[in-house]
């Protein structure tokens, strides 16, 4: 039973994720699900560097912003089709992550958290800096056009964007899954848990960490690109420190060091604030904070570990 779940689970999930929304979801719900895909990729990126590699980042909103802006600028200024912006966005974010990772990753635990936190706070200011506002549109931001389905497919724009995002998401998740389950993934975890032993075994820690950071930035950047296409608008105030904190919350609650955790985390950060808003107009943030702290105590492995335990119990029966 258990083996079947692990083998066919993802495949079944992908088919359902593609078919069910197309059949039943409204345009608005499709939009929400598209954002879930974008968030899932972003949280996954953060998870690679923080969950698997043990480097706490509170600044992944910066890469999300870079990805979103690359897509928006290319679509708006140069009329590049939306799909063609993704590879560029991936490369730009990876380079950006690599350059930033070089100094940042020499630092242990809380120092990296601090540095990336500072980065997250500075992002809006950097985005509207006057030297680049010819590109970024400065404080006004950029409005872009939502793509329609190609080849006269009988799909609405929302359905198409969702399918497209889902396809990109699945591809990236497969990539990440291969990465963490292979040699590289084992090295990442080794560096997190036993840095000295890892070094003794010939792993070039600094290089490895920097590359992980670059990869992580790439994932998050593609998430940003997808979100820009769905939201059709980017502006400096869309990328405040709150966004970075949100990704962090998503990663922790979804499950650090778990590929599926990124999906649960994305669902959480997309839907729980709406629930919190319904519960209390007075203090939605308080509910959010309490849930986060409760998870740290009751389920430090996040939703992913809760489900894993549940499945394990099921398998025993």
């Amino acid at each position, binding site marked *: 039973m258990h083996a079947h779940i692990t083998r066919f689970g993802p495949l079944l999930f992908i088919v359902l994720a593609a078919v069910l929304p197309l059949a039943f979801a409204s345009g608005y719900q499709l939009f929400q699900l598209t954002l879930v895909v974008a968030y899932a990729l972003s949280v996954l990126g953060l998870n690679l560097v923080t969950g698997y590699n043990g480097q706490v980042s509170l600044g992944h909103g910066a890469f999300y912003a870079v990805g979103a802006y690359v897509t928006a600028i290319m679509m708006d200024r140069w009329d590049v089709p939306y799909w063609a912006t993704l590879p560029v966005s991936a490369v730009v974010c990876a380079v950006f992550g690599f350059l930033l990772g070089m100094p940042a990753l020499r*630092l242990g635990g809380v120092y990296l958290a601090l540095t990336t936190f500072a980065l997250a706070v500075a992002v809006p200011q950097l985005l509207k800096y006057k030297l680049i506002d010819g590109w970024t549109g400065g404080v006004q931001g950029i409005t872009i056009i939502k793509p329609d389905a190609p080849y006269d497919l009988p799909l609405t724009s929302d359905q198409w964007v969702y399918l497209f995002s889902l396809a990109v998401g699945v591809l990236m998740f497969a990539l990440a899954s291969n990465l963490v389950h292979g040699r590289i993934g084992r090295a990442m975890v080794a560096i997190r848990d036993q840095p000295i032993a890892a070094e003794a075994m010939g792993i070039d820690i600094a290089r490895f960490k920097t590359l992980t950071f670059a990869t992580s930035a790439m994932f998050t950047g593609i998430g940003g690109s997808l979100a820009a296409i769905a939201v059709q608008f980017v502006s400096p105030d869309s990328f405040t420190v709150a966004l970075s904190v949100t990704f962090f919350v998503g990663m922790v609650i979804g499950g650090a060091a778990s590929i599926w955790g990124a999906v649960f985390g994305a669902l959480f950060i997309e839907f729980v604030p709406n629930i919190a808003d319904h519960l209390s107009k007075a203090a939605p943030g308080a509910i959010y904070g309490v849930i986060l702290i409760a*998870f740290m105590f009751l389920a430090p492995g996040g939703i992913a570990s809760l489900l894993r335990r549940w499945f394990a119990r099921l398998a025993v029966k």
Partner: protein
Amino acid sequence: MDAFLHQLFSGIATGGIYASVALALVMIYQATHHVNFAQGEMAMLSTYVALTLIQAGVPYWIAFVLTVGASMIVGIGIQWLVLRPLEKAPVLASVGVFIGMLLMFNSVAGWIFSYTLKPFPSPFGEGPPMLNGLFSRHELGSTGVTLLVLTAVWAFFRFTRLGLAMRAAAFNPISSRLVGVPVAKMLALGWGLAAGIGAVAGMMVAPVVFLDPNMMAGVLLYAFAGALLGGITNPLGAVVGGLLVGVIENLGGAYVVGTELKLSMALVIIVVVLVVKPSGLFGKTLASRV
């Protein structure tokens, strides 16, 4: 020259604010090796408590003492209830808890006290500009208070047995336990002291930036930069670092990069310090894992 002097002194005054928050951050780092992202929000809540007392008619300095005392008790409580159980957990867990507290405190403060900007009284009174406008009474007074707190902290660590025990507990908990230092109590005490210092910082900051639930959002980043610049293990370093950050920020904003990039300078300071001299100006070399 006059302009330069004004910028310099304004930077020192602002730096005093960063210094006082940085001091609280260093305190917790000293005791527990955590960086408390919720430090600013705790200080903000303390300040609301003080304001409530003052509005109820309690004289300023009595309200001040009561607030510091209450904050210390709450700080100890938080350590005891929330952080002690996570002592062995990885960095991720503690950062998660701090971020959770940050969100929670901010929201609760807005809920209880509303988001409206509130004036907070200065104990040093109002008065005409001093020294050709280089310093206001409050700026002078609050800088004095920060230095006073610094001296007290320094003396506490240097001359008291308790201070020594606290340093030992943070530096090497296992050996300390063996020689009879109650390590758990020391960690809680560190939190209590930090919460108390944070409360003082909040009450000194509020007359300048005014009191609202987001009062500390802007200050915290610069305080981080200040603490790192001075060396996060050293109280004196935190104060010097905070002051320096204030001055660098002001002079840089006015003469070098322009106000559009003022905030980004904090980021640059943090990165440069960590790359060039991770121990900061006054700190001891850190045992880095890499």
